[in-house]
């Protein structure tokens, strides 16, 4: 469908597989998507942390982070929470259905720069979606990194995304994977408690480590506080922002946080930059 250099015209894509990560009113559904156009598929080159505008023609588009690493294969994965008009329409899609994709947009995690370092990801709820590509990328290039620690929490065990993947990761002794839920629950034998306090319990050393966090604003706030307590420097801490977006290419104006357009200058910011943006935590 994309015929020229018009950035507003999306690619057609086919949903190859879908499954629910969580249930309930605000269910999270994951889509494995393949671009239809061969050329587009070959030219598509995203980096962990980037987003794409996915949508359904006739309904609209939403900016969703790409939750797979390019190392995984020639497909895209999006984990979408059912919230509004577009995400409701997306949730109707099943394997074989069509959706539209344009992107990839935004900057990305500087994974090249991080080579040789310990990677610590701290996610909460749907905030694990942008963490996942980092985890996958680091797993695929494990010899180039100093190690990978993952902390992930949600309200209940049912709200945890990518559960089955963690099972495997927890068995892998090289990786350190920590899960937590907010309140005690039958059949849950792992940690109970909020993500920021679990971070303190684990007490990771800031030395040669990069911490990346994403989750609900309140969690991010406390995680950042705790990371500082642990001795992390501003440039060792990264997070991703989100705002309402329409165009994805820095034109429509609505996603600005301070002078930064989240869709182009972001979504990935290090804490040093973020601190200078007055609206970043609004």
């Amino acid at each position, binding site marked *: *469908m994309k015929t*020229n250099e018009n*950035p507003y015209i999306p690619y057609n894509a086919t949903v190859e597989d879908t499954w629910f990560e969580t249930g309930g009113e605000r269910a999270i559904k994951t889509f494995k998507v393949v671009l239809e156009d061969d050329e587009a598929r070959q030219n598509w080159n995203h980096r962990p942390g980037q987003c794409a505008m996915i949508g359904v023609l006739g309904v609209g588009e939403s900016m969703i982070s790409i939750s797979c690493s390019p190392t995984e294969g020639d497909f895209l994965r999006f984990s979408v929470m059912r919230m509004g008009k577009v995400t409701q329409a997306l949730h109707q899609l099943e394997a074989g259905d069509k959706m539209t994709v344009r992107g990839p947009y935004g900057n990305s995690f500087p994974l090249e720069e991080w080579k040789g370092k310990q990677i610590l990801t701290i996610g909460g709820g749907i905030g694990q979606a942008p963490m996942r590509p980092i985890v996958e990328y680091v797993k695929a290039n494990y010899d180039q990194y100093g190690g990978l620690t993952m902390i992930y929490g949600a309200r209940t065990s049912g709200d945890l995304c990518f559960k089955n993947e963690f099972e495997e990761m927890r068995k892998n002794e090289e990786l350190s994977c920590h899960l937590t839920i907010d309140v005690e629950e039958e059949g849950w034998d792992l940690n109970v408690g909020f993500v920021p306090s679990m971070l303190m319990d684990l007490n990771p050393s800031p030395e040669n480590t990069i911490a990346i966090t994403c989750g609900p604003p309140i969690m991010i706030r406390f995680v950042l506080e705790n990371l500082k307590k642990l001795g992390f420097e501003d440039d060792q801490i990264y997070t991703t922002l989100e705002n309402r977006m329409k165009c994805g290419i820095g034109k429509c104006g609505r996603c600005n946080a301070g002078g930064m357009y989240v869709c182009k200058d972001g979504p990935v910011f290090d804490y040093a930059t973020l601190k200078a943006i007055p609206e970043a935590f609004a």
Partner: protein
Amino acid sequence: MSAMLLNKEKWPDFVGKLTGKQLWAPQIKDEQLRFAPVAEGEEPALDYKNTRVPPKNVVFPQTETLFRFQVDGEEVDEPKLDEEVVLLGVRPCDARSMVIVDKLFSWDYDDPYYARRRELVTMVGLACSEPGLNCFCPSVGGGPASTEGLDLLMVDLGENYLLEAITEKGEALINETKELLEETRDANLEQKEKVINEAAQKIKRSIDPEGIPVGLPGLWEDSLWQRVSASCLGCGTCTFLCPTCHCFDIQDETEGFESRRCRTWDSCMFEEYTLHTSGHNPRPSRLERTRNRINHKYNYYVDKFDVIACVGCGRCINLCPVNIDIVEILKQVKEAL
């Protein structure tokens, strides 16, 4: 580039020459002065201060179809933009606004619709000889005869218009209408200087933006925002009528089996503008929204594109229902620095 004289008696002929193309000019329609297409035989109204609605909708229509498609279809159909437009009688501030907005629409990604419409438009400006009460263009880098963004500038010299070509497009327009024009004399150029100087003298309002872009971040928590935003109604008048405001919304509209994706002007003064689906709003009240508007024009845009996103046309001051006056706000900002 050449300068020529057009006797006002030949004005209708001059307009007639242009109506071959799509000609937009200020006209009085429904008791209101507005930019509208001029039909054959109609005459533009040039004796005016400025239109209420800026001519930005010629290059950035309030509603623009991005593409059309069939429900459940896979092919999209882009609109063809190929109609040349002559924008006649644009005030220098409005022309300058387009140069400012160009920077955003060509930032990294080219906006194909905007770029195409900009290509197709020829801007014939009219220097101001009677500036409005709230004009402050010289303060923000413009002037009553600024040529930025114009292809041709007309200056009212009483009996004649002085036509000065600024670009190739303007030159071409002069060539097309050559038989109506006369050579200029030195006296005309002197007269032009005089008209422009007099106009500049008549501009009463001013603000020195020196220090504002750098200083605004430091005033983030200042009480002045509460003061200036208290009376804001949260309507979109200031932004919709602003020639440099360029934010938009994208929506899909479906009617039967026909669908389109279109964009429409949007305003940062609306609550819904930044509202997340979760119900969280990063700018929850009029205070944040007002602060954002001023910051965007005088701080963020300067940071990114090195120009103030305000041309001093005074429309937001003229038409704000509750007298929120951007010059007054900026004065308060300067005081607070």
